[in-house]
């Protein structure tokens, strides 16, 4: 379920906007890869970070913590974070935990 799945954290688009794809299970292994990718994009001057969850079925506590870290890093740099194509169960989890208060949700 986790690290074996090919990482889709490739980003696309111009330097102002970046899309990072999360894998099917967002845990420590895949989360750290996403975190590295997001930090690189933010350092490169991206001001809108889009995290695509279209393949994500499950997010564990480490995944949530890493996402909060990304949100925090983006806030420090004045960038916006958008969660796109989030599955209903995951939206419920993010809502319950208050994560959605810090990001915009979007359907592609």
């Amino acid at each position, binding site marked *: 379920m986790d690290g074996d799945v090919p990482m889709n954290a490739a980003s696309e688009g111009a330097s102002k906007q970046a899309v990072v794809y999360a894998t099917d299970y967002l845990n420590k292994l895949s989360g750290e890869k996403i975190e590295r990718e997001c930090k690189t994009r933010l350092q490169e001057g991206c001001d809108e970070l889009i995290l695509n969850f279209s393949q994500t079925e499950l997010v564990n506590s480490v995944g949530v913590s890493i996402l*909060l870290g990304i949100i925090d890093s983006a806030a420090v740099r004045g960038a916006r974070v958008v969660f796109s194509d989030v599955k209903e169960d995951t939206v419920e989890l993010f809502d*319950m935990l208050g994560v959605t208060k*810090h990001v915009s949700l979007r359907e592609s």
Partner: protein
Amino acid sequence: MADERNRLIHTFGALAELGEEVSNKQSFQDTMRTSLHLLLGSLAIMRGGVARYSPFGHELNMLAMRGFRDDFPIALSLCQEDERQFLANGLYPIEVSQAKVLPFFQVYDHSFEQSGLELFVPLVVHEEPVGAVFLGQKATGEPYTSYDREIICAMARHIGVAILQRNMMAELERRAEENRKLYENLRMTYNDTVKAFAAAIDRKDKYTEGHSVRVGKYSEIIAEELGWKEQEVEGAAVAGYLHDIGKITVERKIINAPYRINAKESSELNKHPGVGYEILMPISHPYSDVPLAAKYHHERLDGRGYPDGLFDREIPYIAKIVNLADSFDAMTTDRPYKRRRPANEVFADLQRNSGKQFAPEIVQAFFKGMYNELTGVSKEKRFRRLLGREYMETEGIIPMLTNAMNGIAPASNLTFLH
């Protein structure tokens, strides 16, 4: 209701993962980082950190943190009052805004405020302070509930136990290292004492000065060639150094006699293996066979040796090694009544007596060690130092040695007799 259930599933999942994490044998730093993620992620806390308590420096050293400002201190000092209060408080979260009476919160007030810290959890395990957890606000922006505090308390206990285990491991490693150094010192003292004894033995005989040391070195070479472990090789060297310790009780005039000694003198001299055994036996050696080497280094495979006339397999292996080393040195050094023998004679003697006096595989090992040095396979110059350059440069020494090696039967003819 569904929300509550989901919250329970999420936090208990985190607790289960944390239990697994702290029992994993991965790096401590990694465990701490993941543990912090699990704690922050279980309740969606925006920022946090884990620190370890140092009883020597009376400070908290940060091990992992997320979301703190870059200028957040990595070592936070504690005074006695702080320590007393934290110990009394146990694992329960302390509200940072309400704890400013304590010096700790006064000193670091600015840093805590800048990083938005709300809770401070002293990690106390078995009434021992081991560290602390720092927590910022929740992503919901709501205050921590009593349920949240219970979860934090449970997870903090896991983290505290992990730190305590690490501390205990570090202490064990430190003590093991201390023991290793002590053992090393003892070993060096033992080896120095052995060498001093060897020198004392050799002082009795002006002709065989350095004999024990050379026998030690030859025994070491043989043990190495036989593929023995480092400790065993060291043991073989010690056995060589001390093999003649019994000569300490033999009269000097017998040892130094410039003629072939008579039967009575010979009987006196032949007591030295048994005396050596009696001297060495009460001593606790790191290598158990040392006294046996002294006692049996004059035994022969064919049973014609002394003191007990043992045959082949009855002779301790270490004694067979020392026997060859001893005989080789006797043949290659000047004696009161005899000059050293040339290489061709010595090789022929060893070959001829292989299977009678000497164990064939030991002779082979000895020859191989010399051959490797002569042909440059081994860069060490031990034989050259022990025998002298001239001896090792005897014309045709390599073919002589090769012939002798090829002439040795692979095993003793006597092996199956006893």
